[in-house]
């Protein structure tokens, strides 16, 4: 799960990580008021969307008076932001964060994350702040510093101190840096974050260390123990269909093709997309119906697939282990009848109760193409779409 910059900064502040003062605004008037209450000579008006690269796309403006802040907010609010991280249709800006400007002497990069390769937490830092860290890693890997932290031993002060000196910070700032890192790490653990990224971390002309931007991702598996984090969820920032899928406990990812897919199990669902591509087709979605798939769930899954107007055929691929193919077949028949499915249906049932399942489909009188193997299923689904478009 992701949150907005203003929410990330509130969390950082809660954990003692210094951030510039700022206020949220949803209208130009609120932005003007916020700028006035900050009272600094420079304020920054920043679009709040779940995507990076806002500055280059025109979503961040530096202004010098409350009047200018109002003007900037009126330009940013309501705009559709296109950055490398937004979906193709862009993201509509509904909120801006109005923040006190800082006098920047130096920009650094700092992140806490979980490093899967070594199964430890990692502090990742660089002197190249304000740039895409992937780019820095590609061009100048020697400028990326990594310190691993054992999950049971936890962060040691000497690790943070060493990192501060390696970043070239003067001795009198290293103490502040250690406390900054400590706050970041405490937040990371306390809220089950999967990543906390500060880019840039700035050293001001007066020697303060501040988180100028903040991005936090949370471990979805741990949300059950963080109701405060769940409360920060912004449904408007999430894909409508992915959100609907979560509510009924299905894993769904929208894609740009025309063959809707319903599969049980994440690995087989990914492999089904690969199969469709291999046969020259293009899938409309990833959908893992999970181990508990039954009649009702199949119907809900069909509803979800059919919400995508690009879907021209549906491929159901079930390898029954825990899942019973006869229950899936009942669900497919019910969904096709009750939802009035008009697109071609290709159904492959294997494993537990598959003979019974296939009989249910055959007896339904519905126009369902049965497939025996995974290869058959892929070819038949692609053929169904090709036939429809001719």
């Amino acid at each position, binding site marked *: 799960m992701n949150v907005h910059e203003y929410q990330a900064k509130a969390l950082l502040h809660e954990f003692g990580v210094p951030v510039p003062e700022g206020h949220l605004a949803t209208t130009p008037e609120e932005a003007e008021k916020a700028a006035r209450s900050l009272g600094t000579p420079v304020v920054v008006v920043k679009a709040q969307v779940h995507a990076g690269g806002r500055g280059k796309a025109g979503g961040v403006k530096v202004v010098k008076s409350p009047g200018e802040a109002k003007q900037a907010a009126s330009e940013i609010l309501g705009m559709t932001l296109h950055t490398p991280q937004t979906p193709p249709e862009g993201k509509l800006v509904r909120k801006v964060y109005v923040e006190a400007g800082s006098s920047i002497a130096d920009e650094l990069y700092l992140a806490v994350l979980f490093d899967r390769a070594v199964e430890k937490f990692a502090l990742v830092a660089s002197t190249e702040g304000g740039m895409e860290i992937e780019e820095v890693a590609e061009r100048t890997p020697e400028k990326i510093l990594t310190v691993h932290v054992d*999950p049971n031993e936890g962060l040691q002060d000497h690790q943070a101190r060493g990192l501060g000196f390696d970043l070239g910070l003067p001795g009198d700032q290293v103490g502040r840096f250690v406390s900054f890192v400590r706050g970041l790490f405490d937040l990371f653990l306390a809220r089950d974050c999967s990543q906390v990224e500060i880019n840039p971390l700035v050293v001001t002309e007066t020697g303060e260390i501040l988180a100028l931007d903040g991005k936090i991702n949370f471990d979805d598996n741990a949300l059950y123990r963080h109701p405060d984090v769940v409360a920060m969820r912004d449904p408007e920032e999430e894909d409508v269909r992915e959100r609907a899928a979560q509510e009924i406990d299905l894993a769904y990812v929208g894609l740009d093709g025309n063959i809707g897919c319903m599969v049980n199990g994440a690995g087989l669902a990914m492999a089904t997309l690969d199969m469709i591509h291999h046969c020259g087709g293009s899938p409309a979605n990833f959908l893992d119906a999970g181990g508990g798939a039954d009649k009702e769930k199949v119907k809900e899954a069909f509803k979800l697939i059919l919400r995508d107007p690009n879907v021209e055929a549906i491929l159901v691929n079930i390898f029954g282990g825990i899942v019973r193919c006869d229950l899936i077949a009942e669900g497919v028949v019910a969904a096709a009848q009750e939802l009035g499915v008009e697109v071609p249906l290709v159904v492959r049932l294997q494993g537990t109760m598959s003979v019974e399942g296939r009989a249910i489909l055959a007896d339904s009188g519905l126009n369902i193409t049965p497939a025996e193997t995974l290869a058959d299923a892929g070819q038949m689904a692609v053929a169904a779409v090709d036939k429809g478009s001719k």
Partner: protein
Amino acid sequence: MAILCDRNTKLLIQGVGRMGQFHAKLSLEYGTQVVGGVAPGKGGQEKEGFPIFDTVAEAVRETGADASVIFVPPPGAADAILEAAAADLRLAVCITEGIPVLDMARAKSALADSDMRLVGPNCPGVVTPEQCRIGIMPAAITRPGPVGVISRSGTLTYEAVDQLSRLGIGQSTCVGIGGDPVIGTSFIDALSLFEADPETSAVVMIGEIGGSAEEEAAEFVKSNMTKPVAAFIAGQNAPPGKRMGHAGAIIAGGKGKASDKIAALEANGVSVAPSPADIGSTLAQAAPDLLG
């Protein structure tokens, strides 16, 4: 022989809720020695023909169990793993999906001092055909034979096993290692067990996007494996930044792409199936003797 479990394995069920009981019953029917269950506060009861104990330690004392399968829900699952290790079990297989990464990171780090092998979490389990079923796999599709199967996924394992069985190629042991970012047994761990197993003569490994375990396994195959290895990588068309069902199946920061994994495997002598329908046939080509 096989690996991890055989007809002598004495299995405990940790977490005897609806799912734990259901699969304990299927394992018993398959011929697995299910010797007891663990449910704190329910010790002394009887379920599906085996006794329930309050703690793993007590269950081990009373039954001589050497392995455990864990169905405990996510909030208590990491603790259940550590309880199994504290009771000196040889093997724990964790089926639970949805354990927080932080909990697993801590548990895995703590297991470094233990002799217990953990398989999973978020895995379908382990089956040694006609001998022992641990977990939730539909054991009926397996048949005994010389091929070791290792997979990060559940249903895709069934697909691969089914393809092998249809070609008349049986399996020594099928191991689901799990789809989470932190897992107890890696591809490399399972590959080295199969390399050492005299009853295994070839291995199928099924990977997916996310992490770098397949790349590491590829190098291991080149330097340590004498037996042929065939592979498939799922998610060749997955968009970056999206979690594809499994918590660990995500391309993040340009890392974990299927194309990189396939290139690493092929460069190190592993035959990679071009499509998921070709897993069985790719292995048959890599190990032609198996088709006899």
